[in-house]
Each structure stands twice: as C-alpha cells, then as structure tokens.
C-alpha cells in the first residue's frame, strides 16, 4: 500500500489567549501566576487525516472552525501541541497561498517574485525566464514595480497564485485565494490548477464556496470548532454540511446520522 503524502495523527492545536495578548515583559512575569487552562481554546482537536498523492481535498466549515489552522499545520507553519504531522520527504510544498505568499510589503511585486521564487527553488536565471509569464498571468503589468503594500487583496492573491504555480509544485495549499479574485481570474486559475492536478500536484483548498469545492475536489472534510465532523466524497459531505445549516447544529446532525445507522 502506498503511504499517504500527508499524514496527520491525533493533532491538537490550542491557542492560549493570554499568550497571544501578552507583549510586555511585565505580562510574562504576571502570567506565571495567573495562567489557567480556561484561557486556552482548541483550534484543532484530535485531527487524524491521510491525504494521498494527487488527491484534491477541500476543507469546509464555518468561520473559526479551524480550516486555515489545519492548512497551516500541513504547511508546517504551526507546530501542533500534540500529535504527528508528516509530509513525505523530497516533496516541494508551495508556500501557503492566502493573501500574500510571504511577500515583503516594502518590495515591489517583481522583487517579491524573485524573493519568493528563491524559496520555491527558482534561481534568478530561471525567474528571469518566468517573470513575464507571472506578470501576464497575474495581469499586474502596470503595478508590478509598485510596492506590494499598495496592492489590493485581489492583486496580492493573483500574484501569489501566479508565482506559486509557475513551477510545478508537488503540494499546493490554497486558503480562500480564489474568493478574492474576479470571475475571469478565478476561471483562469482553475484551468491552471486543473493542469497542475493533471500533472500530479496534490491540492488542498480551504474555501467557503461550496460549489467550487464540490466541482474541484474529489474529497471534502468538514471541520466544526476544530473537530473533524465528516470526511468523504465531496457531494455527500457538502450535502451533509448544507443540511446542518438548515436543520440545526452539526453536533445534532452527527448524532442523528449515527442514530439512523
């Protein structure tokens, strides 16, 4: 049996509210005394998941359900408090694409392409050959030499997507990136994404656009308050998720399904 490309086992991520707020030496000294478990909240709880090579996985859930956190755990940006995360070695993991791929706000779009490209293993020479394609794809020719801090969220996302997909990555993580672009760009991005998937890229997408996920992903997982509620073929999980919004809380729905046998 082929081992999964991405493997998560009993992953817990907990945010300590006090830690996040404290920014002064004094806060740290005081927090030694008053820290309690009640100040922390689970962003992910006991998540176990396997993602096979070439799979197209969508993640759904309400705001604050832990979707983006899960993506960050896979990207290695967040180290879980407990559990195992393993991504097969010798794989190129494109940086997490959300609003900015790791763009330096003071640098221009062009400079950020060279900078971000270096993290993808693209040399200066290779980027010289790729940059025109990136500019054309992102449709930012008039702004490419402006600092990215002046970009709109859509412009950020376009450049981030164009850069991350210019060299064939093994794993592509997309966080709502297709929600901020206009319809033309979304269409173009989907076409490129499908081409990459045809070439074997594994894609994990977080989105509130259920229709998009159902059409683009073969499998969906549904998170609710950091807990994995459902995992299965896209149409079925999407239907269950939709129904949860109509009939009550997801917990009620889960219990009902179990009761139904």
């Amino acid at each position, binding site marked *: 049996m082929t081992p999964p490309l991405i493997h998560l086992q*009993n992953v817990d991520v907990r*945010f*300590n509210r006090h*830690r*996040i707020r*404290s*920014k*002064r*030496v004094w*806060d*740290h000294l005081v927090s030694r005394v008053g820290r309690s478990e009640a100040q922390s909240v689970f962003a992910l709880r006991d998540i176990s998941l396997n993602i096979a090579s070439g799979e197209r996985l969508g993640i759904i859930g309400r705001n604050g359900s832990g979707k983006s956190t899960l993506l*960050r755990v*896979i*990207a*290695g*940006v967040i*180290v*879980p*408090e*407990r*559990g*195992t*995360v*393993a*991504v097969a*070695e*010798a794989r*190129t*993991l494109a*940086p*997490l694409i*959300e609003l*900015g*791929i*790791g*763009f*330096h*706000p*003071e*640098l221009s779009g062009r*400079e950020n392409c*060279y*900078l971000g490209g*270096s*993290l*993808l*293993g693209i*040399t*200066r020479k290779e980027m010289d050959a790729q940059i025109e394609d990136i500019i054309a794809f992102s449709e930012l020719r008039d702004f490419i030499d402006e600092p990215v801090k002046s970009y709109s969220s859509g412009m950020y996302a376009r450049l981030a997507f164009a850069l991350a997909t210019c060299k064939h990555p093994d794993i592509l993580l997309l966080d709502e990136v297709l929600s901020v672009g206009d319809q033309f760009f979304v269409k173009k991005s989907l076409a490129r994404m499908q081409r990459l998937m045809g070439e074997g890229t594994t894609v994990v997408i977080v989105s509130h656009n259920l229709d998009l996920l159902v059409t683009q992903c073969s499998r969906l997982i549904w998170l609710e308050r950091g*807990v*994995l*509620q*459902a*995992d*299965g*073929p896209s149409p079925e999980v999407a239907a*269950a998720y939709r129904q949860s919004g109509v009939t009550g809380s997801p917990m009620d729905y*889960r219990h009902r*399904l*179990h009761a139904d046998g």
Partner: protein
Amino acid sequence: MIAMHASQSLPRGDTRETTVAPRPNAHFRQFAVQYVLSQLKVRYRLAWLGRLWNLLEPLLYLVVLSVVFSVLNDSSVRDFAVYLFAGLVPWRYLERSIMGCIDSIADGGWLLRRIAAPAYILPLTAWLLASADFIFGLIALTLVLLLLENAWTIHLLSLIPAIFLLGILGLGVGTIFAVLNVFARDIKPLVQMTLILLFFSSPVLIKRSAIPIDSHLAQLFDWHPLTPVVGLFQSAIYLHAWPAARDWILVTIFASASVLLGWLLLSKLRHRFYYYL
C-alpha cells in the same frame, strides 16, 4: 462513503512530531542573498545619498566626538581621533548588529506565518545588512589611517580574527534579543537604553590613561563587558601592539556563548513564534 467522526480524546502529553518536507538549504541560502540585496535596495531606493551617508556618518561621528572628548581626555584631537575610531567602528558594528536583529523576527510575520522557513534566516539577514554597513565603517577607518604616519603596522593583522569574533558576537547577541523581542516587545527600548549606558561608560570614549588608577571608574573599566571587545581593536590600531590574551579569551567566550544561546533559544522557541507575530 462518508465517514462521520465522533470526537475522542486521547490522554494528554502524547507525542508531538512534525516532519514537514524540509526545503533544501540551498533555497534558503538563495533566499538570504536575495533578501539582503532587496533590503539594501529598499534602504537606498529613495536616497542615492544613502550609500555616501554610510561613509560620511562614521566620519562625522569621529569629528564631533573627537573634538568634544579630546578635551575631556586631555589629549590632542589628532591622537584622540585615532583612539576613538579604533573603538567606535567596532562598537557601531556591534550596536547595529544587535539593533538590526532585534526586530527581525518580530517583523517577520510576513514570512514565518506563511512558510515553514527557519527563523534564523531573519536575524542572519539583518546581521548581514549590519555587516554591509560595517564595511563602510572600515573604509572610513582606512581613510583615517592613510592620513597618519606609522599607522600601518604588522599588528593590524590581528584585526582579521578580531572582526570575525566581533561579527559572531553581534550575531549571537542580536539573535538572543530578536527571540526575546517576539515575546515581549518592550525588550527593544530596554536594550537600547542598556546599549547607551554601555557606550558612555566604556573605554570607547574615555581613555584609560585619563582616569586615576584606583578610581571607581578604573574598576568599572576592568569589569566592563566592552573593555575586552574594543581592546582587541584599540591595541592593534592605536597602541600598535598585539591584543592581550585575556581580551582574546574573553571575547571568544562571549561570542561562542552568545551564538550558542541564540541558537538554543531559536530552536526551542521557534514553534511558538506563530502565536506572537
């Protein structure tokens, strides 16, 4: 088939292991080079004078401080200028390394919140930028030495290992404060104040010969952490002598300990940065 998951709790304190495919180090080296180049560009983008200013600034410092402190040190301006520059150039490198590094991780959310990049890359690039500035300081120092007779002695060779140790020290101390500054942002003004106190109480500005041997100030100089550091440079440039063994040993210990502690803090606390950036 759809699998509905019931939550199940496992005992706390279980294993924690993250094996995300590491990017090859070559990528990060390339990134570090690109980042330094782009930072230099940002710095000088709107100020062509910037590059010239890097050269003029230490010279301006030299002129002003030489005139003021030569009086206090009861020394000729020319003599004091050499003494001053011998301590000022390394001090400014150390100070710029530390203050350059201190914000590097705290301001690095744009990178560390999106990519599993090794955090050392940020203080390292800040330190490289400080090192680029230091080169201008060295050029200014060379210009001053060119104006002097008998300045070029064999003892200047000891500057090579001295600069190496100073660089390591700056990187180490800078990394330590860069990590601490992530968790407590008021570390920066505290460090800034400490550096000012260290500078004005150090042998950079005050010559040992200008103070009574048994005075408190002389005792302070003996224990001052900057004494061995600037001593390496003052011996070679001003005294035309080989630096004392004690200075070498102390600076080597300071540099090794700081870089080791910085590395230890980075590797132990890297996983917590996300929550504070």
